[in-house]
Structure formats: C-alpha cells, structure tokens
C-alpha cells in the first residue's frame, strides 16, 4: 500500500535533483528548467498532502497546486524573456559569464 511517506520522499528526491541542476549547470535555460522541476516537486507534495488529509472537501492542497502552477508559468515567461535579452547583450547564456556586478 502506498503511504504518504512514499510520495513525500519521491517529492524531496525530485526537489534535490532540481536543486542539483540549478547549482551545477551553466546554461541559463537549463537552470530555469531545473527551477521548474523544483516547482513540480512542491506541487506533487501539496497534492499528496491533500489526498491523505482528514478534510479533503476543503480542497486546500489542490488550490495551492493550481496557484503554484500559475505563478511558475509567469516565472517561466519572464525568465525566458530575460534569457533572450541576456543573449542579445552578452552573445552567450552561460551563467558564469555574467559577472559585471562582481567586485
């Protein structure tokens, strides 16, 4: 039988994979997509908590997941627009080549 702990461990594993991608990769697009993996892991965790909650008729976890999806879609749109502008300026989207602010 699948318990709540299985879902939460899977969600934390996916969150760790997304964090690994976000701190390791140099390409800005892949960094943004790793952040999307972390968003999805959090949504999976929220929906699993809703499914196992004593008051599922409140629909709290489902509502959190829907608002999370809307916010992460807005983040992806702005982030990819920024990537395109950065590419026009630096002719590159490697995150460690953007160091104008470094002292």
């Amino acid at each position, binding site marked *: *039988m699948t*318990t*709540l*702990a299985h*879902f*939460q*461990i*899977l969600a*934390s*594993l*996916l*969150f*760790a*994979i*997304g964090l*690994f*991608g976000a*701190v*390791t*990769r*140099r*390409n800005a*697009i*892949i960094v943004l*997509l*790793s952040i*999307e*993996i972390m968003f*999805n892991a959090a*949504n*999976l965790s929220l*929906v*699993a908590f*809703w*499914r*196992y909650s*004593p008051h*599922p008729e409140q*629909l709290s976890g*489902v*509502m959190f*997941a*829907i*608002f999370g*999806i*809307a*916010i*992460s*879609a*807005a983040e*992806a*749109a*702005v982030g*990819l*627009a*920024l*990537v*395109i502008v950065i*590419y026009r300026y630096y002719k590159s*989207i490697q995150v460690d080549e953007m160091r104008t602010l470094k002292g």
Partner: protein
Amino acid sequence: MDTAFIILSLITVGGAVWAVTLRNLMHAVLSLVLFFFGIAGFFFYLNADFVGWVQILVYVGAVAILAIFAIMLTHNLTAEDEPEFFSLRWLTGLAVAGAVGAVLWFAIKNNTAMSQVAPVGVASNVADIGRKMMTDWVVPFEVVSLLLTAALIGSIVIAMEQISHRK
C-alpha cells in the same frame, strides 16, 4: 507501493535526471516533457484530475514550447563547456543537493503521521474547485490574475527594449 506508483516514479525520476544531466539542450527539454507527463500521471493517480489536466496544458503545452523557442532563438543547441562528470563543480552540486535531500528524508522518516494509508472516496471535481475559487479563494484568484497580466506585459517590455535602442 503498487505497480502504478513504481512506474510513475521511474518515469519522473528518469526524466528529471536526464533533464539536468544531458548535454544536448533539446534532448534535455524533451526529457523534461517526460517528467511533466509523469507528474501529471501522479496527479491523476491522486484523484486530482483537474490539476493533472492543468499540468499537461500549462507545462507540456506552454512552458516546454517556450523553452524550445528560447533554445532556438539563442542558437545554442549543444552546451560544450558544461561541467564534466565528477568535476569539482559537479561534486559540489551533488553535495549540496544530497544534504538538502538527506534533511528532508530524515524529517519524513521521523514523522509517524506520514505512514497512514490513503482514505477512500477522496476526489476533486471541477464544480467544487470552481465554487471554492469564487468564494473562499477569490482574493488569491484576483491577485494571480493581476500577477499574470504583469508578467505578460513585463516579458513583452523586457524583450522589446533592445529593439527600441537599435533605432
């Protein structure tokens, strides 16, 4: 654990690992689509049908296509100077992600409330979600619609700035 959970776990973990390790950016985005489908499968498995369909529409339909467009607009299909396996950068990332994952795993393992089995008959139908969204959740709903409008206008302004400078 039942069979559906194991299959969906393999799909999502495999898609996520490929998405963060593959060097060809297009292959990475396609593995990410596999991951998004796996998460949508989990939402169906958890009886949250509406969230599953929203996941497919927003992530597979919009975010993945947007990422593919960004890759094509930046002419950068293969990332040559990505860190090698077991380089210092790679090991540092693995240590950070491993530490965060270990803390979460420890917290979940030590929580006895996590070992309950799923109650039967829990489902979310779209009519209830719509009613909740228009009553209890109407303020967050309006705030999110404002946020989406701001993001839409903001991304257009950010991407158009360079064109006005060029004149």
